[in-house]
Every structure is written in structure tokens, then in C-alpha cells.
């Protein structure tokens, strides 16, 4: 089963400056998960100030530039995993958050195509 994990947060909360030790640990985790065959794809999100929101309603397109008013947004990273079950996806997510030090990641099953 595929799982999509993404981290939500308040974009206005300042993030700690990049910590080389954390990066090294994260690289090791990515390597481990890739070698275990469970990490299919992962990436980081660009800033919301560079985001665009495209809306289509009543036959009209509206394109709005970020940042947006909402408090909770998809920030930081996301990962597409292929795990045997939800419990396994949760364990990998715990290891990810353990390195970041804090945060909240939503893990959702991916259906299809």
C-alpha cells in the first residue's frame, strides 16, 4: 500500500536555522528508507510566498498569489512511501519526526491510479 505523508504547520512560526547534524541524520534516514525499498519519492516545499492558488468556479478561473491567510498549511516535507501496512508507515514517520525534533505529519493511504 502506498502512503503519502505530509507535514502541516504555521508558516509564520520561524524555523530554526539549518542544523548540519540534523541534515546528516536526515540523509541517513533517507538512505535507509530508500535501501529498504519503501521510500518512493520525497521532497521539500518551497515557501508559501512563491505559491499560487488556482481556483475554478462558476466557469471562471481565479489565480491568487501566496502567502495565504490560513494558519495551517502544507509546509516542510512530504514523502511517498510503499509500506506493508499503516503501522509500518507510522514507524517510518516517527523516525522522521524524531530527527526534526517536533512537528505533526499526516499519513494518508494513496489509492489508484
Amino acid at each position, binding site marked *: 500500500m502506498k502512503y503519502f505523508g505530509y507535514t502541516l504547520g504555521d508558516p509564520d512560526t520561524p524555523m530554526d536555522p539549518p542544523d548540519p547534524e540534523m541534515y546528516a541524520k536526515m540523509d541517513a534516514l533517507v538512505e535507509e528508507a530508500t*535501501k*529498504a*525499498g519503501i521510500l518512493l519519492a520525497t521532497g521539500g516545499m518551497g515557501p508559501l510566498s512563491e505559491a499560487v492558488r488556482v481556483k475554478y468556479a462558476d466557469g471562471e478561473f481565479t489565480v491568487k498569489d501566496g502567502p495565504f491567510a490560513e494558519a495551517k498549511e502544507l509546509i516542510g516535507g512530504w514523502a511517498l512511501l510503499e509500506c506493508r501496512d499503516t503501522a509500518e508507515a507510522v*514507524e517510518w514517520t516517527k523516525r522522521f519526526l524524531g530527527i526534526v525534533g517536533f512537528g505533526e505529519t499526516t499519513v494518508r493511504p494513496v489509492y*489508484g*491510479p
Partner: protein
Amino acid sequence: MTEARARAAIEAVIRMESARLIAGLARLTGDVGLAEDLAQDAVVAALEQWPAEGVPSNPGAWLTTVARRRAIDTFRRGADLQQKYAEIGRALEAAGDAATPDFDRAFRADIDDDMLRLIFTSCHPALSLPARAALTLRLVGGLTTAEIARAYLVPEATIAQRIVRAKRTLAQARVRFEVPDEQERPARLTSVLEVVYLIFNEGYSATAGADWMRPQLCGEAVRLGRVLAHLATGEPEVHGLVALLEFQASRLGARTDEAGSPVLLLDQDRARWDRLLIGRGRAALERALHLSPEPGPYTLQAAIAYCHARTFRPEETDWPAIAELYGRLAAAQPSPVVELNRAVAVGMAHGPQAGLDLLDKLAGESALRDYHLLPSVRGDLLCKLGRPGEAAAEFARAARLTGNAQERELLERRAAEAALQAAPPAGPAS
């Protein structure tokens, strides 16, 4: 957190750590069977302690430490003393305290090498193919015997027996826990790839029973292949096999209809093919081709699969290219089954008569005598040649030969359709 969730979390952690734990212990003990016994002791301890104390922050190190202590205890107690335990206990005791970070680091340092050794050992040619598959799922996949039994739809005792015997065979044959040397390596690697492919195929087209697929086995095989590809990066055929598995797995969602009946490749809804897996397959195929100017059988099969995967509409399929690849595959690995597939491709590329001519050369092959796909393909080509009466007989024969209930149903339907074409029921005169 509910109790069930806590239990599932513990089991997931154990499954994730299992292979590396066994691999590390096997290096220390030189004995895969003993390593698994020690690992099992540690797992039992974890299942007792973790529910109350919580999962430790470094579960792998915890399990290793417990397994190691168990070995030393057994040695010290001297009860039921086996020579093997004694040696290991002595060696481990000399290595210092189990809880030191140095030990953990040393244990983990060569983990990739240990994993590769574990794969080569559990796929050792001294074992029968089913034994290799069960042992590999247990030791490398980290599945319990109950999980393996469920995936294969057999009683747990059957799998447990198979694994016990496999471990005994390895011990009796004095199989060493090592990566084979250069001379032995190609044959041993073939044995490994064969196991991974067997597991996949067991899941992809269940050979018996009512289920057409057991997707869990496909998933395990793909995962094993990916693990192997990161351990044996320079082996073209490893990447070839991974490519093949990724392409085949990309079609899993399209291979059955809503009722669970099989849908043939050319009838599949290609929008349901998993593009992500196709992309991964293409990358693996490129690696394989880059590593070897003379593609091996898995790489050639992957190249054939890619011909289908890259095509959005079946009528755009490059059949001449596929027929040519089958020709190369037949040269690299002569087999009546490959010839049969070549006949299908040739039939598509150069007309059904050309396919049938190739097929006729296979008529005397004893290996294909009871193989349901031979009459099935004949039936298909005869249909296209406008010979539905003969086609119906071939489909009926194929239906009798297949062991898969879903496939039998499909073949019986085709037999009935062809028979109807051959002798349509009398209708009103027109």
C-alpha cells in the same frame, strides 16, 4: 492509543529491524539458523517488555543487545551446551559489554555487507526453490511464519517445517555466511534472482486456488528486489529484474476487473497503470543496459515489458520490436515458453499465420505438453485466421489444463464464444 495499535506498532518495528538483526547476528555466529534462534529470543523479550515499557528509542540496538546476552547466558549456563553456542558466547564475551555504543557501531558498520550475505545464504542453491523462497521471506523480508503461510494460503506448520528443514540443510551443507567469490558469484546471483522472481510470480499469477493474484507476495518481491539493487549496485541483471518487477507491478491494479476476473494485457485500462512504478522501472532498465552491453534474460524481459508500458494505446504497440527482443531472449535463454511468447509477438507483428508457423514447431515439446498457454495461444491465432471451430477445441483444452479457477473461467468463455462463431444458432432467415 489502543492496545491493538500498540501491538501493531511493536510488530512493525520488529519486522523492520528483523533482517538487519539476523544479518548482524549471523556474521557474529557464522550460522544463519542460530542467528535466527537468537533473534527470535530477542523478539519474544521485546513482545513481553515493550508493551509496558514502550518501544526503546533505538529498537535495533535493544534487540541486538538482548540477543547477544542470550548467547552469552547460554554459554555460561553450560546447560545443553552446544559447541557452537560455546564458541559464540566466548567470542561475544571477549568483545566487551553489549551495551556500549562501540559494539553497536561495529555491529551496524558492515550492515550492507551482512544483508547481502544473508540474501546469498537464504537463496543458497543447496536448498529447493520453495525452501529458498520461504527462508528468504522469513530472514530477509522479516515476515513471521504465520504471515508467510497466509500469503501462500498454506497451513503455518507447512511453512514452519520448510524453514526448519532449510536451516538444517544449510547447517549440514556447512554453508558459510559470506558473499560468494567471483568465480561462484554469477551462479549464486542467478539463484537469488530466481527466488525473488518466483515469489513475485507466485503472487502475480497464483498457480492454484481461487485467487488470481496475491498482491502481498508481489509487494514482498518488489521490496526484496529494491533492497538487492542497493546492495549489489554493479550487477546489471539485478537492475534488470527490478525493472521487470516494477513494470509488472505497475499493472497490478489493471489486471483484474471489479468481479476479480483477469483482464488480459491488451484489454487493460492503461490509465490504471501506475506511472510512478513505470518510471522507476525505466530508470532501473537504463541502469541495467548501461552496465551491460549484452543484456541478460531479466533485462531483455524488462525491455519487452517496457515496450508495453510506454505505449498508451494497445494498437500502437511496437510488435516488431517485441518480436525482435523475444528472439534475443530465446538466444540468451532458450526455452519453449520463450518461444511460445515469441510466437505471440510474431503473430502480432507479422500476422497470425507467421505466429502459428512458429507455434507448430513447438507441438512436440514435452515441456509444453500440459502447459495451458500453448493451446490458449493457438486458439487465439486460429480465431484470427477465421478458424473458430479449431480455436474452440484449443480453448477448451487450455481450460482443462489450467490450475487457476479464474483463468479457467476466462478460457471456457472464449471456448464458448468461438464455438458459437463456428456454429451460430439458427436464426430467422434473412
